[in-house]
């Protein structure tokens, strides 16, 4: 069997990470193909619901990335995002979703190489974690337990 190829989605801000990924391109830095990029104006725009949705769509890992602190194009979107993620991560941990599947990183427009590394590292880390079984299994837990509940 061929090696498990994780599906990775990257939610990135337009001004830093998207541009950093552009730079990786112009510098022809090669990295893993597994990643699909969704562009946002700013990390502040990234709704935690979209992360859930991505898992639901079959993502095995998620990269969330934007401007370094103090560099946000809108001055503070990333600071708000940082708090939101901190709390969200704790919630996922508590529920038992492996929060290592979400990788947060600051990648500036000048860090093409960092972007490439980030993708590669994430791919290999998620490859080690294996497929995101939890969500996939959920789809199979078809009927809920209400039946049992009513019965007893």
């Amino acid at each position: 069997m061929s090696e498990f190829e994780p599906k990775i989605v990257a939610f990135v801000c337009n001004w830093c990470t998207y541009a950093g990924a552009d730079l990786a391109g112009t510098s022809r830095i090669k990295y893993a193909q597994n990643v699909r990029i969704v562009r946002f104006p700013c990390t502040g725009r990234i709704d935690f619901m979209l992360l859930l949705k991505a898992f639901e769509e079959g993502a095995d890992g998620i990269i969330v990335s934007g401007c370094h602190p103090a560099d946000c194009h809108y001055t503070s979107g990333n600071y708000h995002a940082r708090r939101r993620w901190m709390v969200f991560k704790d919630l996922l941990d508590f529920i038992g979703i492996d929060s290592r599947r979400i990788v947060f990183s600051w990648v500036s427009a000048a860090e093409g190489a960092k972007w490439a590394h980030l993708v590669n590292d994430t791919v290999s880390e998620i490859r080690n974690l294996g497929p995101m079984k939890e969500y996939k299994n959920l789809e199979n837990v078809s009927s809920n337990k209400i039946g049992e509940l009513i019965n007893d």
Partner: protein
Amino acid sequence: MTELQNIAKKLFDDGSINLLIGYSNNENGGTSAIFIDNSADIDKLIYNENCHQNLMVYFQKPEVKKFGKLAFVVSLPGLKSVLEIASENQIKDGDAYFIAIDKDGNPSLLQDFHQIEDFITNNQTKPPMGLLKLMEKINNMTREERWQYWTDEFSKCIKCYACRSVCPLCYCTQCITDINIPQWISTESSPIGNLDWHIARAMHLAGRCIGCGECMKACPVDIPLALLTANLNKSIAIHFGDEPGMKADYKYPLSHYKLEDKENFIR
């Protein structure tokens, strides 16, 4: 006449209020909310350890609002929700009177947020042991066990939204679950839909939940909902040092930030 009834009567007599929301005995031997709009009914007003419902949930209801001058019988959690919704621009100082029940069951009349803040500071209680124990137990599980635990719990959810309707902080006119463009959360009680709902609910209450535990008591299938928000509040207290429901001018931690916020989880 009890002290509680005395206070209530006085409020009616001097014309301070048109509606009082408190507790009375019900025919099942329990207690339930009673809406008193004239002082003749005051003898039905009671307070005992069975009176747990957070009556502040009624504050935002238009049917209640139209009475104008209001009074609520509230214990500690209720008062905390007053301050929390005050910080969320939903209630102004002077919008209502509060007959506060202290930890010994004695009533007193509170009129402004300042008095409420003092009352809360002086009447702090520890969260119920059972909840803390369960929280610890879950935190000590392996991740796989936790996932199993919660999928089991969530799979019971029938999406009745009782948790939402008893929550004094779920006052949105449009809840995210009711939106269909886009359909953020699937409406059926499917495993994924349930998970999404409970995560969304917890996130929306993170740093806002004042821990009255009503959601858990209302849940017909006994999902320990309050754990999710209690655990989140714990992380918020650790990360940002904030606690909801203590001050009327509370700054919601998720819409403020500090430059030095922790970021050791960010690469």
